[in-house]
Each structure stands twice: as C-alpha cells, then as structure tokens.
C-alpha cells in the first residue's frame, strides 16, 4: 500500500537526489531535543529525587487522583462533545451557503486566538449566578460557574477549533462524485452521510478529537477562573501542580506532571493506532 508522503532515506553511501539531508536532519534533531526532549527528560529526572514509595504515595493520594480524574474525565467528555458538535459545525460551514458564513467561520478561531485568561473571565462572568446565561440556568437549578460543569464548558470552548480546523479541509476536498455515485445507486441522504462521507472523515475526526482532548487536559488559564478550584471536586491536575509548586513541593509537582505526561502519551498512542487503522482502511493514493 502506498502511503501519502514521499520519503527520502538518507545517510546511506548512495548519493541522494535531495541535497541537505545531513544539515536538515541535524537541525531537526537538535531542535526537537532542545524544545521537547530535554525538558521532558528533566521532568523525569526530577521525580527520581523521590523514592518509589514516596512517588506512589503522592500520585495515589486522594487529592491527586481526583484532580487527574477531573482533568482527564472532563477533557475526554468535552472532546467527545466537540467531536459531535464540531462535525456538525464543519458540515454547515462547508456544505451550506448562508449569510454570515464567513463570520461564523472566523468565530471558530476565537478560542485559538483569545488569551486563555480572557476566555476564562468571559466564561465566568457569562455563567456566574447573575450572568447572562448563569441567571436563567440558575432558575432551572443548574449551576455552572465554580462547578465541574464549568470546567466542562471551558474545555469545550477551547477544544472546538481543533475538530473544526482538522476536519474542514478534508471535507472540502472530498470528491463530490462519490456522493453522486451513492445517490445514483439509490442511497438516501442519511445513508450517504453515514456510509460514505463519515467513514471518509474518520482519520481527520480522530485527529481532531485527539487534539481537542490533549488541549483540554492541559488547559489551565481559562479553566481555573470558572472552576471554583475546590480540592477533590473542581480542582484540575494542572492547578494542583501549580499549588504544589507554590508550596515549594517541587518533587510532588513533577510526580503529578509525570503521571499526566505518561497518560497523555498513552492516549495519543492509542489515537495514533486508531488513526493508522482507519488510514489502512482508507488508503491514500
């Protein structure tokens, strides 16, 4: 099966048709090391200041476990919501022409561009007891600000552009003829969407989901304003790390960080495998 990119292997004795292999490869490795690998290694090294028992103690403490559960659980749920809603938004933006479409398209990028603290304050005031949305919701007995629900909403807010922007170009590029083929073969609109379009979008949807999830897990700025930050209830893991740091408990902080890192890594790995599997089923030319 032929994969999408052309790959130039270098370093063998043979002359390479693409020049600059040594230079670009060297720069790439150096750059990735300085920017990503060395800081991560530092993180791991820091945890070695702890004995294994101490490490286990920290990461299995009730507060840590709850913080991790909140961060990962809500991020996962938010990414799922973004997957569904993001797909619908993409569909509308790509397939329909309506007044204000360009404006809506631009609005999708706001969570990308907005400083997270600004987003946090905006969401908090919107969902506060007396806020525009908070007040009517309070009437219904739903409290958003300073509860896990608030965290959930902030995570949805910051994750939506990831799904939209990864899926949008793929849907745009989708050959309209495959839909016409389906229609001509007697498929109705839903069957076409369900059996033909959606399966073609799966790799992009998975990528969008993974990115939205990763961003939500790591989100700090916009969440802490609306979260209330009650330990065990609405305290996210990144905040717990900051708290430990401010208490000068650096090893504790890094222990939690390492757990987050490993968990995030495993999730990315799983998504990557899924993507690979989906890609195998929809080989590119």
């Amino acid at each position: 099966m032929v994969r999408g990119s052309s790959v130039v292997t270098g370093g063998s004795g043979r002359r390479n048709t693409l020049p600059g292999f040594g230079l670009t490869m060297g720069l790439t490795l150096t750059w990735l090391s300085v920017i990503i690998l060395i800081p991560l290694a530092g993180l791991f090294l820091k945890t070695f200041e702890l004995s294994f028992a101490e490490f286990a103690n920290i990461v299995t403490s009730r507060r840590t476990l709850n913080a991790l559960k909140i961060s990962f659980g809500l991020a996962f749920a938010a990414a799922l919501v973004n997957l569904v809603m993001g797909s619908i938004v993409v569909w509308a933006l790509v397939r329909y022409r309506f007044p204000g479409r360009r404006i809506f398209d631009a609005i999708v990028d706001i969570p990308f561009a907005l400083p997270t603290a600004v987003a946090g304050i905006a969401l908090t005031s919107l969902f506060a007891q007396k806020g525009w949305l908070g007040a009517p919701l309070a009437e219904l007995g739903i409290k958003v600000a300073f509860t896990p629900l608030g965290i959930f909403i902030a995570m949805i807010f910051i994750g939506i552009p990831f799904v939209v922007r990864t899926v949008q170009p793929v849907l745009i590029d989708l050959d309209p003829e495959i839909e016409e083929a389906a229609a001509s073969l007697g498929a109705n609109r839903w069957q076409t969407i369900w059996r033909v379009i959606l399966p073609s979008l799966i790799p992009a949807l998975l990528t969008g989901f993974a990115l939205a999830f990763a961003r939500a897990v790591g989100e700090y700025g916009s969440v802490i304003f609306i979260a209330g930050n009650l330990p065990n209830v609405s305290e996210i893991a990144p905040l717990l790390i900051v708290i430990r740091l401010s208490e000068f408990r650096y090893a504790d902080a890094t222990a939690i960080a390492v757990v987050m890192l490993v968990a995030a890594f495993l999730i990315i790995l799983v998504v990557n495998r899924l993507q690979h599997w989906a890609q195998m089923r929809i080989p590119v030319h």
Partner: protein
Amino acid sequence: MTIELTNITKRFGAFAALDGVDLRIADGELLALLGPSGSGKTTLLRIIAGLDWPDGGDVSFDGENALARGAGERQVGFVFQHYALFRHMTVFENVAFGLRVKPRAIRKDEAGIRARVKELLDLVQLDWLADRYPTQLSGGQRQRIALARALATEPRILLLDEPFGALDAKVRKELRRWLRSLHEEINVTSVFVTHDQEDALEVANRVVVMDKGKIEQIGTPGEVYDYPATAFVHGFIGESVVLPVNVTEGRVWIGNQPLNIAAPNVGGPSKLYVRRHDMQVGSESIGLRGAVRHVRSFGAIQRADIAVCAGGNETVIEIDTPRDHALRTGETVELHPRRYRIFAD
C-alpha cells in the same frame, strides 16, 4: 428502455453548455456521445442520470417524465469518468453498496447480496479482487469494478462517462472489445461519452456527434464517417484535408483557378473537405495542383506535404498515396479528390 430528450438546455451562468438538444435513444441501444472536450457531453449524461437538472426541455424514460424523479429513483447506472469508487470499502462492498442501501422491504438478504455481487464480479472477470481496496487496483480494473457497482441494482439504463479516457492504448483496446461483448450479453440501453472517435466508431451502434452544446449529427459509425453532415463532423471524424474555396454560380474556385467539380447547394466562401486517403495524385486534372514539399515513406504508403496555391496564400496539405507512384520533392502534381464535400463558411 427508450430515452427521449426534447429541447434540452442547460446554462452555467451566461454560458450555454447545452443548447436545444433533441435525442431519442432506442431500447437496447449502445450509443456514443462523441465530441471535443467542453462540448457538453458530460452535462447531457448527468441530466439523463438526474445528477443535474436542465434549465429547459424534457427527459422521458419509456414515455414517463424522468425529471420528476431524483437520481436514486431513475434506475440509472452511472460510471463516472474517474470511477468515484468508495475508497474505504473493499471491492466487494463497493459492488454491494447499491444492494445494501435498498429499503428493507425489497432488500436481498445477506446471502442474496453475496450471490449477486459474486455474479457481477464474475461478469467483469474480477472475482479474485473482492477483498482489495480500490486504490490497490489498476485503472482498467477500477473501471470494471465501477461498472459492476453500477450494474448491481439492475439499472434500466447504463451511462458511462469517458469509460476509456484514463487508460493506456492497449488496455483501451481490450476494454472496448469487452464493453461491446458485455453489451451484447446484458443488452441494457447504454450511452457512453467519449472525445475519441475510435472509441465511438468501434464500439457504438450509433454515434451522436456534439459540438458547443449542440448535436451536429446522429448516425451509425459508417454514416458519420462517410457522410459527415457538417464541416465540423468532417473535420472532427477521420483525417481530412481542408482547402479554402469560393463558390459562385455553381462553380468552384480556388484562388483564381476554377475547379472542375460540382458544388450543389453551396455558395460564397467555402471549404473543400477531402479525406486524406481520398486525395489522389496525378490521375486526371480538375484544375487543382500543388508543389511537393516533402515526402516520407513507410509501410505501404508514402505521405507527402503538398503546397496548394489558394488565392494569395499557400495551403500545405498532407496526403497519403501508394508507394508505387513515387513523388519527388519540388515537382508539381495534379490533385484529384476521389470523394469530397464542400461546406459554406
């Protein structure tokens, strides 16, 4: 099933892609739509299939208005130019698609679907590819799978857009022969689009020649080749030699030289069309002569560039003559068209 198109018009903005097309397709016919790129062939095919709607005119199948029905309800099998196979499905699932999306009440059961798909894969002689994905197939194989997919639901009409377009010469020849015999076997009313005259003349029972959104001529391959109705058809089908002439009072002039040929029903500035192989050298004089510029020989023929003085200008034509009559560069020769047509400009 018979298809009747009446006065079909289709515009894209101000541009008329189809301009008053009338066409009757008989039951069981294998018809070719032949024309240069951009002449509106695909647009016409899509209108028959219900993938596009005309701005004016009627489409009827067996006398019933087809425009009232959507693409899925017309029982038309459409083979797209670039196949439009579902890349995430195996060959088997591609062919099964039309069977699986049928309403539950009339859907075959799984065993029935399997049997039908197997039947079709056998028909296109590709049953051994059932588990492959479309991207793992060659162009010719994809073409046949697209055909099998279109045939699975037993359409009443089969439409193929440039079925030989993307294939190399050898595969093309095989597929032509195969398509013909397939049509003889299943005998469903079929229309295929091509810009290649050989495809049309070799495969079809009847050829519709199109240009600029209009039908130029409809006829059997022999008719459109031997009796082209318009200058366009003459120029488009077969190899033609074209000379500018002037017709006054039934007399044909090339420059100020009268030609001893008849020009019924034509007047004024015109073009003399002769098939390349119909232009003979040196037999008798009709007043048409030219200077041999260049000669090359291969096989049984020699091909010569001959400069004919037409008015103030020179027109260089390329003709084929038998080798036994050797031509020398520089000599002046008499040209005699065995058969010819004159069309007014």
